[in-house]
């Protein structure tokens, strides 16, 4: 087979050493009744040449954002990715290593995670960050867990403007702990709920699905006033421009890391990040890297505070996470190193400038923005006169991946069209979009 090095002679020598005739002897302890007595019903094996051809064909059946003009967002963004990242991340020493259990052979991964933790803590304005989560949504879920465990209260309150998938994951996760999840649509509602029950954590998104930011300070304040933890979910690129959640007093900041140099990958793998205040460091899920010295006094790095984790604490662990999304975090680390503070700020502000241009053009065309009294960054929603699905269908025929049909998420948002604009979109592309929208409207 493809990747098995054994020659017939090797196999024979090994069987002889074991004093058996066939490998079957090594499987004799499997109960006869359980064994599979037929071949697996799968495909014929392909050589690498055939495999390449087959998968080139499959890939060609997908429309990539390199072929179309995309205005999709919702946590994942079509951002520019510097070419250097792939060529570094693909190096076998990074790509094919396991979790850095043996620090002497893993300083590359460990040092990079240490850098990552530093960058994320800085971006979010928090004391410390861990090595990575699977994605933004499960990071929100784990933050809910942390709040339940830390406060020993049973209720999680989340904003209705949290990303849809994050909301669903919070529900799934919190239900596992027999907790209750409530959704609120405003800080007023939030205050009512907090006043009515013992709330463990308040989860807010910043900027939220409409691109809004203004409710955050009050939400954090209220959470603290009622003894709940304030959990904030943020697109990390936005934090290059926005006052970081930590400065508003957030206890936990989490988010989807894809926009930091990770490919869209149809939703994964990217990574989630998780940052906390000093008080909560030992409550964080997942791996943490710390600085230390070797016996000669040289600085190096190790996995640390492992006593929190499942392999030590087992049924008493706060989280079961073991493998995380280390390579994706490495991609983000290199991305942030390549861009630096000015580059990341440029990415975000270009996106803001362009999104505001597009929003303006659409408003002129008669599509009013959701919450138009509030400022927004580079993602926003407009009300479409008619079927968003049909509009998107029209645009697709012109090579445009239109915005997200918010009605698919909730009936309440029927007719709302969520558009994200990144630094990659040009004025020409936006004008084309606007023209096609107009044309469709006057159909």
């Amino acid at each position, binding site marked *: 087979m493809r990747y098995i090095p054994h020659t017939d002679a090797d196999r024979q020598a090994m069987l002889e050493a074991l004093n058996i005739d066939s490998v079957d002897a090594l499987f004799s302890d499997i109960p006869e009744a359980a064994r599979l007595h037929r071949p697996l019903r799968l495909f014929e094996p392909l050589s690498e040449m055939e495999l390449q051809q087959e998968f080139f064909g499959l890939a060609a059946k997908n429309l990539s954002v390199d072929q179309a003009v995309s205005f999709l967002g919702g946590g994942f963004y079509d951002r520019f990715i510097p070419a250097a990242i792939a060529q*570094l991340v693909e190096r076998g020493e990074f790509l094919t290593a396991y979790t850095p259990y043996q620090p002497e052979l893993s300083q590359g991964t460990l040092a990079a995670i240490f850098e990552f933790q530093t960058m994320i803590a800085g971006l979010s304005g928090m004391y410390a960050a861990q090595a990575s989560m699977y994605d933004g949504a499960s990071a929100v879920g784990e933050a809910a867990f942390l709040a339940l465990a830390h406060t020993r209260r049973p209720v999680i309150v989340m904003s209705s403007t949290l990303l849809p998938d994050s909301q669903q994951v919070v529900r*799934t996760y919190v239900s596992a702990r027999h907790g209750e999840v409530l959704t609120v649509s405003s800080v007023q509602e939030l205050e009512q709920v907090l006043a009515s029950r013992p709330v463990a954590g308040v989860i807010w998104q910043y900027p939220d699905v409409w691109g809004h930011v203004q409710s955050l300070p009050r939400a954090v304040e209220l959470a603290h006033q009622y003894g709940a933890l304030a959990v904030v979910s943020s697109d990390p690129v936005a934090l290059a421009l926005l006052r970081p959640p930590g400065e508003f007093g957030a206890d936990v900041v989490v988010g989807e890391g894809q926009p930091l140099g990770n490919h869209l990958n149809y939703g994964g793998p990217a990574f989630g990040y998780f940052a906390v205040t000093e008080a909560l460091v030992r409550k964080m899920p997942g791996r943490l890297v710390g*600085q230390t010295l070797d016996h000669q006094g040289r600085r190096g790095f190790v996995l640390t505070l492992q006593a929190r984790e499942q392999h030590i604490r087992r049924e008493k662990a706060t989280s*079961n996470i073991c493998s995380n999304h280390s390579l994706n975090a490495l991609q983000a680390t290199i991305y942030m190193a390549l861009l630096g503070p000015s580059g990341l700020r440029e990415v975000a502000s270009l996106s803001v*400038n362009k999104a505001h241009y597009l929003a303006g053009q659409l408003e002129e065309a008669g599509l009013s923005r959701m919450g138009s009294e509030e400022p927004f960054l580079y993602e926003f929603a407009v009300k479409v006169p008619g079927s968003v699905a049909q509009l998107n269908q029209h645009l697709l025929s012109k090579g445009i991946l239109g915005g997200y049909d918010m009605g698919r998420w909730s009936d309440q948002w029927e007719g709302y069209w969520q558009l994200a604009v990144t630094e990659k979109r040009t004025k020409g592309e936006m004008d084309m979009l606007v023209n096609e929208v107009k044309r469709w409207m006057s159909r």
Partner: protein
Amino acid sequence: MDVPVIFEKSVPGRRGIRLPAADVPEVPLEEMLGRDFVRTSKLNLPEVSEMDAVRHYTRLSTLNYGLDTGFYPLGSCTMKYNPKVNEAIAALPGFADIHPLQPDSTVQGMLQVMKELEDALAEISGMDAVTLQPAAGAHGELTGILIIRAYLLAQGQHRTTVLVPDSAHGTNPATAAMAGFQVKIVPSNNRGDVDVDKLRQMVNEETAGLMLTNPNTLGLFEEDILEIADIVHKAGGLLYYDGANANAIMGKVRPGDMGFDVVHLNLHKTFSTPHGGGGPGSGPVGVKSRLEPFLPVPRIVGSPDHYQWTYDRPQSIGKVRSFYGNPGILVRAYAYLKSHGGAGLKEVSETAVLNANYLLHLLRDIYETPFDRPVKHEFVLSLKDQKKRGAKALDVAKRLIDYGVYPPTVYFPLVVEEAMMVEPTETESKETLDMFAKAMREINGEIDASPDVLHEAPHHTVMGRLDETLAARHPVLTYCQEDSRAQTGQEGHI
């Protein structure tokens, strides 16, 4: 020399990647957002040139040891060769550059990959339906346990305990607890198997299920598996299969045929997707048909003409993460499956088991094997004797580094004293196994001849043994410009 960090290369004002000027009017940020919402604190990212970054991360990579470096017999981790062609395939823009919210009609190739992978994993595991959503093994466990709970609840059963053998991986009890169950530990018997009599006594109307790895973490096949399944099922519980060790059984025996109701598989182990220094992985979950309604949403439906996502699953446990899982990993795993086919997978498992038994054979006269049985794809040694003679499992592990090998897993499973868990995988050659055995035998000799060589190992790495106690006592978790070195060992951050 200290291990370098990028912040030390930073020079104020130095630039790497720049973005173009805007082709639209500038938005005055402070005016637009309001003063309170504009970031005023410094963005503490390094300021380096592109070449600085390339050199730094190239250098860091050389401080790492990967499968591409050499033998990596890390027990329970199935460090088999990660095919390069699968990387190239996953990087195709048609897979890497598609947005999760694109219309289904624009991602038919990806949906086909995912659907066919679901079907293949169902066939391999003997299950009826598979979800690809979980991001890793532990995540699959959580998903599976939540499915079990949802199923039981739907039957009106409020069962509260999950049974876990004492040899289980830490994620098993952690998962059960995370999902709100009480965890009860089932002891192993003196053959390394689940103690069936004890199990019989432990099950009752509270039992939601049993989580089992088979072959178990000792590398041993649970011979009484059919009886175990029977006991749990008769008590009204379900059987959960931790598929971390599936590399031993493909095409030979299927969890579904052993009586398991829920299974997770680790695509980053059995199906060769690279581990990336800790992830990403993928932990699909397969279930028997009666559990199918409870799988996470969305589900792929349709036929090769047109696949699509459906959310219409009223009994679903909901979502365990955003979107659909890790498609970028799924593509690699599917390419791996396509390279092998059914017969190929069987040969994979047979060879993995042959390699483990051969290697054990080369070592067993010197290193104690706590259970004298043929193993499956990995084995556990007990270095009790070596410890008595002056070298702990950790010392032997560190000394192996000097022989150019990544050390096996140590001190797991917990049921074996001074455990060393060796998993060679099928992609390693006889020469490599012979080399490893020779190293292990030489090291065993060194224990008596020159024990300090072991205690001070490794000798040729960029760092000697690192002080983990110091790291934990005074955690330094982020880089501080002032004096990074001084922090450590003097005053902690916490």
